[in-house]
């Protein structure tokens, strides 16, 4: 069954599931899981190389002809650091796509809205395709869109929490208002969360921990793929209206009270 393609910044993506590459036990498991998920856009982080000569080499496990890389700015504390990280990412990976994330607090990893908005403005000027990670804040998402963000990536729940769509009421407003794609990022813990996100009209989801930390990350990658496809198909099919029946207690007690009063 064909569903509408997702287009971000003029690029058509073959999947509405974006994957993070963190927390995998090995590069081989990551590569297999990515393949099973059908994802095209995959995130990567930057880190300082060790000067003692030991290096990890995860990027060599990624077939960059099959995937579009989305480097993130994780680890930066403000807009100024984010701009430098973005320039380094562009040089390192040869892409101007960027997942902008600025979360100065290492405990909760809450994105800083003010610095994220400032950085978005600057990075758009510098020619980046900016996908900012942000709180599920409808006002902020609109401001990011006006600043030139190619998509907005509000959180469903805290990063790595697997709690699901805790911010649902606000995500619904964001989706209703947005003129750029809305990607639910962070907190999705099980395939049904992803399906629910797509059913409510989110354009895509970004998943990492739920797949990478599953007992079988390859099978879970496929499970999320199917959930995202089902959710999108359901959304496009037009959800049947929810029941609006009122609770029976409310209509039953009044006549009873009237009868006993014997008026």
């Amino acid at each position: 069954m064909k569903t509408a393609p997702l287009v971000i910044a003029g690029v058509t993506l073959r999947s509405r599931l974006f994957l993070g590459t963190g927390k995998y036990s090995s590069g081989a498991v990551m590569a297999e899981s990515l393949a099973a998920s059908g994802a095209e856009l995959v995130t990567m982080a930057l880190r300082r190389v060790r000067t003692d000569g030991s290096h990890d080499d995860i990027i060599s496990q990624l077939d960059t002809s099959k995937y579009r890389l989305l480097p993130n700015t994780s680890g930066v504390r403000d807009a100024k650091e984010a701009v430098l990280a973005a320039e380094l990412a562009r040089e390192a990976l040869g892409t101007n796509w960027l997942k902008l994330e600025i979360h100065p607090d290492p405990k909760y990893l809450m994105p800083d809205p003010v610095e994220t908005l400032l950085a978005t403005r600057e990075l758009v000027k510098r020619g980046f395709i900016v996908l900012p990670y942000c709180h599920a804040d409808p006002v902020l998402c609109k401001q990011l869109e006006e600043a030139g963000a190619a998509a907005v990536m509000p959180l469903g729940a805290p990063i790595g929490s697997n709690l699901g769509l805790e911010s649902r009421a606000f995500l619904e407003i964001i989706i209703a208002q947005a003129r750029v794609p809305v990607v639910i990022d962070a907190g999705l813990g099980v395939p049904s969360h992803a399906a629910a996100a797509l059913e409510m009209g989110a354009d895509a989801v970004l998943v990492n921990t739920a797949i990478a930390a599953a007992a079988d990350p390859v099978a879970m990658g496929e499970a999320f793929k199917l959930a995202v496809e089902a959710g999108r198909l359901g959304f496009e099919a037009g959800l049947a209206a929810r029941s609006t029946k009122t609770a029976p207690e409310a209509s039953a007690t009044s006549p009873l009270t009237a009868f006993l009063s014997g008026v």
Partner: protein
Amino acid sequence: MTIHVNDQPREIAVGLSLADLVRDLGLADRKGVAIAIDDEVVPRSTWPTRALAEGERILVIQATQGG
């Protein structure tokens, strides 16, 4: 002379180029590497001709796993 590589002091010979440093760090064949000197990104194509100077702060990053 002394430079700083990812905040670690490092003694290098005068005249060493950025490409030489990258080789000494074992990164010559690595993909996904980028470098900034004093917070300015230095494009890879200019590494061989970029001579290092006393006191410069070199930031060397590599793409890695992340969400």
